[in-house]
């Protein structure tokens, strides 16, 4: 008997049951895919580092006068348990051409390693270890694999000094050390014979260096011992290297937040749908009670029905979660090696959890059956619901047209019915707004100070000129380059001062603690020109400033004295200030401009900063940047905002995440709109029939229903606008914190983009979806007014 009633119910209330089924499928799909993603990403970097056999500490060096002094220091350290050196050749983007034309553009020098000489396991996109590369072929990774102009199968010429090798790009690699675009350097793996050919180039010793993979049980001792490696370009422990992948983790984490939001949304919708279908059934429940069925039997019938739907839905959802989960992780798994152990189990458990949640929801909702007396159910309105909705607006006093009025009044009279949609759309907008703000801030000149530099009119990034000076004993090379540049600019009617910030790896001692710190210095500016968080700018030659991270690692504070060996001379310096920086993941210091340094010792440098003497306006600066690009035959001359973008290398990732979140948000908004509107039509069939009976056209009904969704979007937008600042602050502070800058970031909020563009996109998409779905109201005829329960 019950089975027959159930069968009839499933058939008769087809649309509502299908809507419920779709929501269960969505919930199961989101729950399964996001729990799998969470598991994969949670252990993702550790898994990757373990499989890559990443060491405890890494030092990247560039030869000094053709020699690498690091080797001896490391060999003499007692803290070193095991050390493997990978020989590398440095190259720059300008060294690569295709058919004689420039091929790519990236800022920092890349490194070439031979496949046989590799001491770190790198993986291809199929997660296979790269053990060999055929002659004439290469694998590229890091930032190069993200560039649009780079394609697998491209044949390129790589010229180091007088030697050129022609190679074809075989694929992209997953690199635990240099894989993140945040690190800037890119790795190229080539065949041994190609590598040997490059080693035969003139002056190759100035292009060579090494990557030391060190295993240790005494990290502090190792850091003390290697603090004197002055030719190191980069040195960090594994934990710091892991941080470079934080942006990938961030993308994954954002996607997980989206997934969790989606699960919450789906469950909210489920609750709504279950309550909704039960409301529809009140008359039947009343009749069943009137003929003597017990509460338990009625409730049991509904439980069985929802169990059937949830089991079918969860099953479909689980299988749909596999491609969906892969789609979500696509961007992240390009660079990270992610494990998939136990993913099936997690997916199944999640799908089962959905069944359980639906069942519990149903159990909770059907409690109302107990409270209903037969007479209540039969008498309280035509569908059993009580007319609790109170009109908030008065048509007689309103100036709105009937469609606008009915739509607006409906939302305002029954806000609970729209609450789940309002929450959904608000969350979607908040996520997109927050990511857009993060991306805009990362491309804003407001962040220039966070790179420990001053604002200039233009920034010329010339890896070649910097590399020429670095590791060279001729101290005048850099000055000559600057003078040449100033002369060229003056000749072309753009008189300017040019300066460059150099970074030195300096051993810093505080008490027993010794570590190597990258120190910035510019002899053409004053330390007082920079921004500090605490303390006073170094005014005297024996004063120094560090970031809070360095102070924390040293265990020092402002006012303490540290010993530093600069240009071979050890002196005592007083810490006078601390400052935040996005450089080196927040691990950096600043030397007074008068401290004697050796240009050749520089580990890296910023761009050449150009300040025009004649104070041109913004438009003229833009025009001059264009002219300079022609004069110097490079596209690496930027304004302050572009320079910040290039330095962070992360706006693209954030923009990608934002676009992905926007697409997912729109997709979810469409799904929810379609399902909700379809539910409304089912529920309000009698009202639609009544409207038609008194002369409303289908297009009026559609307009009225569409207005409701527009009202919901407007409310969501207002809520999102109100919550945007605290939400953005909380989440973005974390993002910038990971990148090295603490709180106090001045966010760039583009009002028009945030509060007009994204809400407008959402409004257009949702309205369109609502309008198209509302056309289903056409099937409801005026004469159905008496037939619809």
């Amino acid at each position, binding site marked *: 008997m019950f089975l027959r009633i159930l069968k009839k119910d499933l058939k008769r209330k087809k649309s509502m049951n299908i809507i419920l089924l779709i929501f269960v499928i969505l919930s199961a799909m989101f729950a399964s895919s996001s729990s799998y993603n969470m598991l994969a990403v949670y252990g993702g970097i550790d898994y990757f580092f373990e499989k890559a056999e990443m060491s405890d500490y890494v030092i990247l060096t560039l030869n000094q006068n053709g020699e690498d002094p690091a080797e001896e220091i490391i060999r003499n350290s007692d803290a070193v348990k095991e050390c493997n050196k990978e020989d590398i050749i440095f190259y720059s983007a300008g060294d690569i051409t295709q058919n004689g034309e420039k091929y790519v553009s990236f800022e920092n020098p890349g490194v070439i390693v031979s496949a046989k000489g590799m001491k770190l396991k790198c993986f291809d996109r199929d997660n296979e270890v790269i053990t060999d590369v055929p002659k004439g072929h290469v694998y590229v990774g890091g930032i190069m694999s993200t560039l649009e102009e780079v394609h697998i199968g491209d044949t390129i010429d790589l010229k180091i000094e007088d030697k050129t090798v022609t190679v074809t790009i075989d694929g992209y690699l997953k690199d635990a050390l240099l894989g993140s675009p945040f690190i800037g350097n890119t790795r190229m793996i080539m065949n041994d014979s190609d590598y040997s050919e490059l080693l035969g180039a003139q002056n190759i010793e100035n292009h060579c260096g090494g990557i030391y993979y060190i295993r240790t049980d005494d990290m502090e001792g190792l850091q003390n011992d290697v603090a004197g490696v002055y030719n190191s370009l980069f040195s960090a422990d594994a934990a710091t290297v892991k941080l470079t992948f934080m942006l990938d983790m961030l993308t994954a984490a954002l996607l997980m937040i989206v997934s969790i939001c989606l699960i919450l949304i789906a469950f909210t919708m489920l609750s709504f749908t279950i309550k909704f279908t039960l409301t529809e059934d009140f008359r039947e429940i009343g009749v069943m009670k009137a003929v003597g069925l017990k509460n338990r039997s009625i409730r049991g019938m509904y439980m069985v029905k929802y169990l059937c739907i949830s089991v079918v839905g969860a099953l479909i959802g689980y299988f749909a979660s596999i491609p969906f989960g892969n789609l979500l992780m696509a961007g992240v798994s390009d660079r990270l090696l992610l494990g998939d152990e136990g993913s099936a189990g997690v997916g199944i458990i999640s799908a089962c959890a959905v069944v359980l949640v639906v069942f519990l929801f149903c159990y909770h909702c059907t409690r109302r059956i107990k409270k209903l007396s037969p007479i209540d159910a039969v008498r309280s309105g035509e569908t059993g619901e009580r*007319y609790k909705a109170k009109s908030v607006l008065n*048509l007689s006093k309103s100036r709105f047209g009937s469609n606008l009025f009915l739509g607006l009044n409906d939302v305002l009279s029954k806000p609970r019915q729209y609450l789940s949609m309002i929450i959904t759309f608000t969350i979607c907008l908040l996520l997109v707004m927050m990511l857009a703000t993060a991306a805009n801030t990362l491309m804003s000149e407001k962040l220039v100070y966070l790179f420990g530099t001053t604002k200039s009119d233009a920034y010329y990034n010339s890896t070649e000129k910097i590399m020429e000076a670095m590791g060279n004993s001729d101290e005048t090379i850099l000055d000559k380059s600057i003078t040449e540049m100033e002369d060229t600019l003056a000749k072309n009617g753009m008189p300017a001062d040019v300066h460059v910030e150099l970074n030195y790896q300096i051993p810093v001692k505080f008490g027993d603690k010794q570590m190597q710190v990258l120190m910035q210095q510019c002899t053409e500016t004053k330390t007082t020109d920079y921004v500090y968080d605490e303390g006073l700018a170094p005014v005297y030659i024996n004063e120094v400033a560090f970031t809070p991270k360095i102070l924390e690692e040293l265990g020092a504070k402002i006012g303490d004295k540290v010993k530093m060996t600069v240009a071979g001379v050890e002196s005592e310096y007083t810490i006078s200030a601390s400052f935040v920086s996005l450089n080196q993941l927040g691990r950096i210091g600043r030397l007074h401009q008068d401290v004697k340094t050796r240009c050749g010792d520089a580990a890296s440098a910023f761009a050449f900063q150009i300040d025009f003497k004649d104070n041109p306006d913004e438009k003229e600066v833009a025009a001059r940047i264009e002219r300079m690009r022609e004069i110097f035959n490079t596209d690496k001359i930027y304004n302050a905002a572009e320079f910040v973008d290039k330095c962070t290398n992360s706006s693209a990732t954030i923009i990608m995440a934002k676009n992905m979140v926007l697409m997912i948000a729109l997709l979810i908004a469409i799904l929810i709109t379609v399902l909700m509107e379809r539910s409304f039509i089912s529920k309000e069939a009698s009202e639609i029939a009544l409207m038609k009976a008194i002369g409303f056209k289908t297009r009026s009904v559609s307009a009225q229903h569409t207005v409701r969704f527009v009202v919901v979007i407007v409310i969501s937008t207002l809520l999102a606008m109100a919550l945007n600042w605290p939400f953005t602050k909380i989440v973005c502070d974390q993002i910038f914190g990971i990148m090295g800058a603490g709180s106090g970031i001045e966010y760039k909020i583009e009002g028009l983009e945030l509060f007009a563009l994204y809400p407008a996109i959402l409004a257009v998409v949702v309205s369109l979806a609502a309008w198209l779905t509302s056309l289903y109201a056409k099937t409801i005829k005026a004469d159905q007014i008496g037939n619809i329960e």
Partner: protein
Amino acid sequence: MSRLIEVNDLCKTYVVNKKQNNVLRNVNFSIEEGEMVAVMGPSGSGKSTLLYTVSGMDKMTAGEVTFNGRKLSSLRDNEMADVRLDEMGFIFQQMYMMKNLSILDNIILPAVKSKKEGGSRKEIRDRGLALMHKLGIEETAGNDINEVSGGQLQRACICRSMINKPRVIFADEPTGALNRSASDEVMNEIVGLNNEGTTVMLVTHDVKVAAKCTRVLYIVDGNIKGEKNLGKCENTSQVRERERDLNNWLMEMGW
């Protein structure tokens, strides 16, 4: 008196489980302007279907309904909606109302939608209140629909059907859900409207209701089996005699 509705060979067939059910079979009749016509007949005879098909709410299978010189079959959905909005009023057995509108707002909704009478929102409101005053439910204007009695609600439905001054009111058992006293009140209002010139076509089971009409059509198995011309009910003393007369006729028809 001019002819307002002309029905020729009207057929309506429903297909249920691949079986044809001919609910209306070649129905022919006409209604003059100002008439008040009752349709009676046993359950399942096709009374409501006839009302909905003649009013254009339901599509006819064959035949033709001419309303005020216009063939309903030639009208598109939107044109038909305009006809219903401006020239027809509807009263149903159940008091269907928009749930989250007040009584007054429910009444004036068709007027706000229509361009026929025009007027500002205040004028429309005054028109609605005047109708409510006339039907004695003025005090319920601001109430929600769950705050009034069934009789008041049905009178509100009548007000709504009258707000655009339609040429005809179609009523499907307008007193079916009401008690006797409420039923009498509602019928008196409908008769009053008819006396003011509004044509009325109603479906009823109630002889007392039908006796107040000028003409009664008796339908059996989708066919008009007979019709009884009662003429205008001039005063209340005639009512009992008209009821008796109608009862006798219905007995003859097989009621």
